[in-house]
């Protein structure tokens, strides 16, 4: 029994210091990580040299490495990680199931397959690739919704259908890559597990734009999304239109994940891992969206750094996050069997 009984009204929702601390800590971690990836490769630069290189001060010899190689990589990792984290947690919260993340139910796979198809077969690039990826992502989301449409789409049915579709799309990706005339292994790996190799700042622009637009849409819908966690009936009793909210969240989350996937490939399990990690850091789940976005950025940048420099062979980021994510997936499935597992 609790010994906290008070006779007068009090603040039931104090500005949560824990929430602010966790979000500040995550932001600091991501910022620190970016600084680390800018300064360090096989060897490390002094912070002053990094700053000089970034500002383009004359005579900075590290200029090429920092500005042309490391900065685009860090920026793309940041925006892609934020997008994967945000899109992933939006799906997981909306469907009330951590397994219902876009990289498990085939949304990432559809964006990846569409991007590969667009680049290899249609020979397009830039914005058009992003657009095709988003359209494919929305199409597959619609397909999964339709196939699993029975009262309450949150069920195991949706996830199993999504896994099936995901496998089909992955085989399309593999097929297109095999048919591609002159692709090297690194480029193929990007579309199979996700990679930041050869990152350019121009690639980060559509991803950043998507973050602004779809992230904004999610922020605007966050309160209604939060109400949806109480179930459709309760949400509707609280004045939330469940279907309209789901439509907005799906659009935003697919947009985020698909555009990031078109730039970096489907970086394995980042969308899936970010939400549950953030939920454990932020009990009661206020600030979950922002938390998951930051965790996503952390996972991508850290995974990329580990894959490049801390392992015996240079590996793309998706291999590292995949190695971390797979055991966690097993853990969640075992746990979900025990208690049905909401996020």
């Amino acid at each position, binding site marked *: 029994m609790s010994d906290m009984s008070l006779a007068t009204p*009090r603040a039931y929702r104090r500005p949560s210091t824990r929430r602010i601390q966790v979000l500040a800590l995550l932001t600091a971690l991501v910022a620190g990580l970016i600084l680390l990836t800018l300064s360090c490769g096989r060897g490390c630069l002094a912070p002053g040299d990094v700053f000089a290189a970034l500002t383009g001060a004359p005579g900075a010899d590290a200029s090429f490495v920092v500005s042309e190689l490391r900065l685009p990589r860090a920026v793309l990792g940041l925006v892609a990680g934020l997008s994967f984290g945000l899109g992933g947690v939006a799906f997981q919260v909306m469907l009330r199931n951590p397994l219902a993340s876009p990289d498990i139910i085939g949304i990432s796979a559809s964006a990846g397959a569409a991007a590969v198809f667009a680049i290899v077969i249609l020979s397009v690039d830039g914005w058009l690739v992003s657009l095709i990826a988003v359209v494919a992502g929305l199409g597959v989301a619609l397909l999964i919704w339709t196939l699993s449409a029975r009262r309450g789409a949150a069920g195991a049915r949706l996830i199993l259908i999504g896994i099936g579709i995901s496998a089909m799309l992955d085989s399309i990706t593999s097929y297109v890559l095999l048919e591609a005339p002159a692709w090297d292994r690194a480029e193929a790996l990007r579309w199979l597990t996700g990679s930041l190799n050869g990152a350019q700042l121009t690639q980060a622009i559509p991803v950043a734009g998507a973050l602004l637009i779809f992230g904004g849409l999610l922020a605007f819908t966050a*309160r209604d999304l939060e109400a949806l966690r109480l179930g459709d*009936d*309760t949400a509707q*009793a609280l*004045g939330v239109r469940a279907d309209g909210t789901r439509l907005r969240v799906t659009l935003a989350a697919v947009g985020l994940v698909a555009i990031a996937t078109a730039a970096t490939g489907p970086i394995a399990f980042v969308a899936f891992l970010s939400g549950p990690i953030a939920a454990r850091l932020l009990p009661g789940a206020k600030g979950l969206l922002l938390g998951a976005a930051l965790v996503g950025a952390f996972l991508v940048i850290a995974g990329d750094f580990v894959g490049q420099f801390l392992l015996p062979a240079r590996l793309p980021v998706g291999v590292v996050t995949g190695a971390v994510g797979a055991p966690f997936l097993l853990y969640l499935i075992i746990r979900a069997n025990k208690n049905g597992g909401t996020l």
Partner: protein
Amino acid sequence: MTQHHRLETRELSAGYEKRVILEDVSLTIPAGKITAIVGGNASGKSTLLRTLARILQPKAGNVLLDGNSVHHMPSRKLAQVMGLLPQSPIAPEGITVADLVGRGRHPHQGVFSRWSREDDRAVFRALEATGTEELAERDLDTLSGGQRQRVWIAMALAQETDLLLLDEPTTFLDVAHQIEVLDLLVDLNTAQGTTIVMVLHDLNLAARYADHLIAVGGGGIRAEGAPQQVLTEELVQTVFGLSCRIVTDPVSHTPVMVPIGRHKAVEKHKDAAA
């Protein structure tokens, strides 16, 4: 503080997908009173409540609140007047009691508006009314079934609506907790004049606690009115297909239904043979 709102249905047909469960229902919920909807399994009592609460779209006809169709009102505006506690509500993992009850404030807040003093006061009143104030910091998962149900009711109370709809609020509770929850609803009704509409499984508790009974069966309303008029041997026979005797509750002087089965009856009952 509480305003009396007029909730009624006009030639309402309701059901799920292609299946029509209730047809041509026209009724008025008495304002400021406690109404219980009773009926057999799958009789449509939940369907009626869920259509009143605009969770379900009507197949035909209207649900009117003060003359306006609830299915065409702005959701948020309606949510400030009418609340619903569904049969098995879902809570996010690890949520505290105060946080959950605070969710009831949703329709009173804007998209980016902040938690206000008024929200605090509403949550306090709701916790106090349900006797859950001392559980405020507890994790919902750690509470007993009875405590949890009181917390859910507190959430609905924090919404501060003049009408409160509840779908079987006593299911899964033992008899002591059932009485506790129903007493709480009477408190709320007498103290604040809240109009209460609930689906109840237990005929005798419905007859004791409701001012107005609605008996649902055979695709429509079989009877409605004061429990003394509605709860008769004939009605139980029509609605449930059960022979029974009606006696008077020595505690509340309300009708009590005593079933006659095939066994155990000491006297010979004409009805049982029929």
